[in-house]
């Protein structure tokens, strides 16, 4: 599975992801341009777990689409492993904000899809798919169709579907936001242990600051849109391995939480005023 069609490995120390004053403008239906992100600078090291938080509409998903190559930056540079992004970036996994597993394929075929697309022999692909299905805790559900699964199980399928490709970069767009609190904590722990297996660089978008701090090595706070950009970056030096449910009671965690929340709150309020047109009493 290491047969990625990507370039020879870059010199050690090259960041996995570099955004250099990346700007993305969208054409709106009335023909004018809408700047989703403006002059965004971001560096994610290889093997680093980076969480992005920010108010709704600030351009978090847009940032991920730039890295994956699904959208092209209007200005600035986007580098992955030191190479400019053009077309779909190989070696990147992407868990979308909405479900994107194929409804007409069984769990097994969904998970095996990546290797099959890349021309891995069917038997090999299925064996490795079974492994990953077990690892994400779905053993016994191989033959189900997505509509026969719960929301949490579908997220697990999407996770296995991406991890089976052993991506060097994993982009996750609010992957657990639709789950209940307990399932979410459980999946966060599982994500951390799976991440430990192959150590991809992760960019994890979330609205939940607790989740961000509990998971990440660094938390990036974005400014409110339009033209969202990085407002501040916080390093999270809590020891690993972490247990997501327990870590939030540690004093270091609480301190960090307050610090980041101060930064984030201003942006959330700004976004709220913009979208509702009303002043916030806070």
């Amino acid at each position: 599975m290491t047969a990625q069609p990507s370039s020879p490995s870059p010199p050690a120390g090259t960041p996995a992801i570099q955004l250099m004053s990346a700007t993305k403008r969208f054409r709106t239906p009335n023909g004018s341009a809408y700047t989703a992100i403006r002059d965004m600078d971001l560096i994610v090291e290889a093997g680093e777990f980076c969480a992005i938080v920010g108010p709704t509409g600030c351009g978090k998903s847009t940032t991920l689409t730039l890295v994956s190559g699904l959208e092209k930056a209007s200005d600035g540079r986007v580098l992955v492993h030191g190479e400019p992004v053009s077309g779909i970036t190989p070696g990147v996994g992407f868990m979308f904000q909405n479900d994107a597993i194929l409804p007409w394929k069984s769990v097994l075929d969904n998970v095996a899809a990546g290797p099959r697309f890349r021309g891995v022999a069917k038997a090999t692909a299925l064996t490795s798919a079974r492994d990953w299905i077990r690892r994400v805790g779905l053993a016994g559900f191989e033959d189900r169709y997505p509509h026969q699964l719960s929301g949490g199980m579908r997220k697990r399928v999407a996770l296995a579907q991406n991890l089976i490709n052993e991506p060097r970069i994993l982009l996750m767009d609010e992957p657990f936001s639709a789950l209940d609190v307990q399932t979410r904590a459980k999946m966060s722990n599982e994500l951390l242990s799976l991440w430990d297996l192959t150590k991809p660089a992760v960019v994890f978008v979330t609205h939940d600051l607790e989740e961000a701090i509990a998971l990440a090595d660094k938390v990036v706070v974005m400014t409110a849109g339009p033209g969202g950009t990085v407002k501040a970056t916080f390093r999270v030096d809590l020891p690993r391995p972490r247990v997501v449910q327990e870590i939030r009671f540690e004093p270091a965690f609480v301190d960090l939480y307050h610090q980041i929340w101060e930064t984030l709150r201003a942006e959330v309020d700004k976004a709220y005023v913009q979208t509702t047109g009303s002043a916030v009493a806070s």
Partner: protein
Amino acid sequence: MNAVTHGADQATAGSTAATGAELVGTPVVTPEPSRTRDVRHGLVVHGLQLAVLVVLLGGWQLLTSTGHLDPVLFGEPSGIVGRLQTWITQGTSIGSLGQQITVTLEEALIGFLIGTTLGIVSGIALGRIKLLAEVFGPFIKVLNSIPRIVLGSVFVIMFGLGLESKVLLVIVLVFFGVFFNAFQGTREVDRNLIASAAILGASKWQITRQVVLPSAFTWIIASLHVAFGFALIGAIVGEFIGSQQGLGNLIRAAQGTFDANGVWAAMVIMAVVALLAEYLITRLEKRLLRWRPTQLSGPDL
């Protein structure tokens, strides 16, 4: 075998405690999925359908036998049954009945297969490749807006009274419905699914085969029901315009001799054929769309 037991283990693992309790305590009565109610419902539906038929056919028979309608012009159910009987036992004026049905079906089926294949392929191609859509879009719109049934005459003149002219007419009739559905279905595919497949490493062709085609199939299959109806119409009209055999020819012969019962009898045969085809298409639909959620078991919404 191994896999089966494994799956069963998984399924029961969570409910071991419950099973244990059941063994000791009183058995839990789970409401039986209401088989009997389904059967009764089916009987009611079929009963009502039978009643509608009896009223329609009985009324028709009554009106003709009491002299309100002229049976020579309007035909009558008993006469239609009689005509079917003679056709089956003694053959028709232009040969055995089986042969006429075979000829018509052959034309309809060949045309249907070619027409739907062309429709699906070009619908998906134009849906996926923007340049093709821009170039051919206007042509297809114009072709679709002309009364294509008239082409039947053109084809008979060009290709004669045989199979080819009918098959061509069927293709022309079937193509457009399937094409537009395949095109629209391709356009409606969830962009997210395409993006996700591309990220997982799918090539353009793999996306078309494994994402676009299955997704568009819901649309395509919906058009197949109508398309088969058009295929039969195409074959019959083609034969009606010019042929030596087939149900259309039979109808024309019956019309020529003021045999209303004969026309109706041919129509009954066509209806049976259409129903059979409809049944087969529905079977195909169920098989291909297995992945779709079943209906909710709650109230009708």
